[in-house]
């Protein structure tokens, strides 16, 4: 009898929600705080939203994962340029909970595809910063020196769109700030000189220098494949909805790109296991590292695709040609990396004659 009246235990660290934690994973027998929004992701990756009834656990079926989150807002300081560490953007973001009728929330997809357990505000800030830096480097957003007011507004529009498309977050506020109180560029440079000019984080590591054990690459590889599997259908949906080309040439391009994305999506769903060359045939360590490298790059191409989608949305018909060209590049990169992830041996183009 007592069991009937027993309350489910509360989620661990629930009081950090809305402060340092954005989302916390729910175990099947845990009760989320009353009224808190909950995201339930089923085994095939479809997400649905629920509202915590309070004191009771959310019923979960087999293979389902659940998160409880707090919509925020969260304040993060983004550093848009690695070369300018003393300049930041103080940004407040909030999870989009405005429209309960929207079937697919991007934030739910983000949790399902990328969150491994708890999602911290700092982690989310770092992800937003990485997306912003990538877009600034590639020219999708521009924040030039001595930016005029119009340029700042254009940047803000692009940033809002990017953060909404990529993370499902709404940018409430964003102002440039001087981080000189916390960050001292001179001290950073002096520390680098003391460390013997060791390379800092933003530079990529050459493929040949990567010598991780296969166990270390298995997890990033699995995460990258999960992202491909879950995000490619959403991406296709986004490309279809973002713009309707009126020019028949562009329409045919859009259809061709959608077809290629569809094939990629099928390919991602049938990707072979990292450690297997054939059924019961193990793959050597070096090849496993190569495969994991390519799955990571494919996930990077996904980031670019979401950023491009943010630009595609609301683009003028005249700009569509250039944007589809960019999408063509991203899809080609995805195809290239997915094919390399699938391969068991060195590239098949050896017959081309590297030295001939």
């Amino acid at each position: 009898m007592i069991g009937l009246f027993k309350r489910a235990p509360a989620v661990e660290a629930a009081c950090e929600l809305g402060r340092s934690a954005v989302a916390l994973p729910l175990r099947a027998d845990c009760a989320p705080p009353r009224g808190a929004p909950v995201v339930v992701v089923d085994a095939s990756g479809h997400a649905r939203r629920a509202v915590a009834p309070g004191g009771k656990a959310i019923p979960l079926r087999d293979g389902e994962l659940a998160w409880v989150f707090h919509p925020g807002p969260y304040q993060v300081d983004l550093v848009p340029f690695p070369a300018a560490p003393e300049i930041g953007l103080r940004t407040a973001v909030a999870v989009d909970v405005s429209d309960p009728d929207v079937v697919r929330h991007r934030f739910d997809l983000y949790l399902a595809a990328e969150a491994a357990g708890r999602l911290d505000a700092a982690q989310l800030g770092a992800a937003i910063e990485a997306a912003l830096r990538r877009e600034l480097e590639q020219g999708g957003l521009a924040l030039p020196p001595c930016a005029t007011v119009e340029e700042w507004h254009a940047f803000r529009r692009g940033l809002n769109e990017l953060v909404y498309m990529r993370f499902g977050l709404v940018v409430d506020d964003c102002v440039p700030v001087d981080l000189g109180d916390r960050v001292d560029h001179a001290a950073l440079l002096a520390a680098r000189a003391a460390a013997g000019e060791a390379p800092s984080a933003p530079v990529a590591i050459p493929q040949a220098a990567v010598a991780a054990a296969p166990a270390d690459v298995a997890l990033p590889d699995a995460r990258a494949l999960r992202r491909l599997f879950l995000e490619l259908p959403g991406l296709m949906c986004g490309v279809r909805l973002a713009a309707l080309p009126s020019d028949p040439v562009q329409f045919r391009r859009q259809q061709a790109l959608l077809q290629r994305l569809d094939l990629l999506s099928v390919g991602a769903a049938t990707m072979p296991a990292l450690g297997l060359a054939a059924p019961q045939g193990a793959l050597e360590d070096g090849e496993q590292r190569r495969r994991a490298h390519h799955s990571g790059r494919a996930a990077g191409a996904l980031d670019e695709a979401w950023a491009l989608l943010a630009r595609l949305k609301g683009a003028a018909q005249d700009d569509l040609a250039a944007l589809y060209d960019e999408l063509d590049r991203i899809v080609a990169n995805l195809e290239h990396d997915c094919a390399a992830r699938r391969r068991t041996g060195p590239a098949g183009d050896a017959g081309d004659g590297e030295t001939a």
Partner: protein
Amino acid sequence: MTQRANTTPDTATVRTLLADGATLTVTATRRERAGRADVKCAAPGDPRLAERMRDVVRLARLTEPRFDSRDQVVVSLDRAPAPDERDWELAVVLADRMVRGVWRPAPPGGIVANGWSDAWHLGRVQGHALRQPPPDALLGGPDGLPHLGLLSGHPDPGAAVSVARAWFPLHSGGAADSLCWVEVAVHPLAHAADDEEGTIAVPGQDAARQHAVRAVLAGARHFDARGLGRWRTTVRFGEAQFSGRSYELALVLADRIARGREFVPRGRLLATGCSDAWHAGRVDTVEGIAPKCALLLRAAQPGDRLLLPRAWQPDLPAGFVGGVQAAGASVACVERIGII
């Protein structure tokens, strides 16, 4: 495959000087990938040399933000360098960048480049082996081009010395108009200096110019509030002889970028302007609007940032702003420096 709009030419050549005095020509060609390797290298005689070339090109590409798997680049040498010679590496990297439009030098022909590196994946160029280099050669190493990012003026993200460049137009009345760069290198100071102007060195310029540069930088750092007493600075100019004050805005912005206190443009920063009140961050007008605008319009490349004095705004030539934007660059007429 759909048709792609790529405006860069299919072939690029860069020359390099060998130790025996001969000139080696590096040719890079771009073509549809069609399932082939991303880089193919050819060198007469030596398959190991071709392998080394391919590694250099692939490592140097790791520093680029944009990855395009649709093209194959074929790089070839027209003669074999000596087996232990490595000074051709910079020329191979630059040819590969030119043919893909990553780097667009103003006259695309006639570039001579010498340099080698063990850290191409960081974009660093460690040195060159020429004893008597020709004056217009692009040389790797600390005295020339220490980092590939400096081709567009950006500091090396991993180096202990922050070096940034900005360009300003030199107007000499016609055909000899050209862009000149100003380079600011800042080293952190262990102990705060009392005299800011004493920490600024301007090698290769006369006393009046040295004094002017010191006064400008001290004033602009005073405006910045966090610039004083932290840095030892070296300023270099692309030309030894020039007159006028229109380099001041480029100098101030290169200094701000080197100190990590300014937004960084995607391409180069081209600026013209001077001021009598840098301590207030004000930008005053300079002479020569028509020829300088014509020069800047010719020089503008994708990602470049053009900064002009606010007083020029009503007098800008018709079609200037549109032309700059069509080239992929952006332009602003500014009254004051500082972010936003």
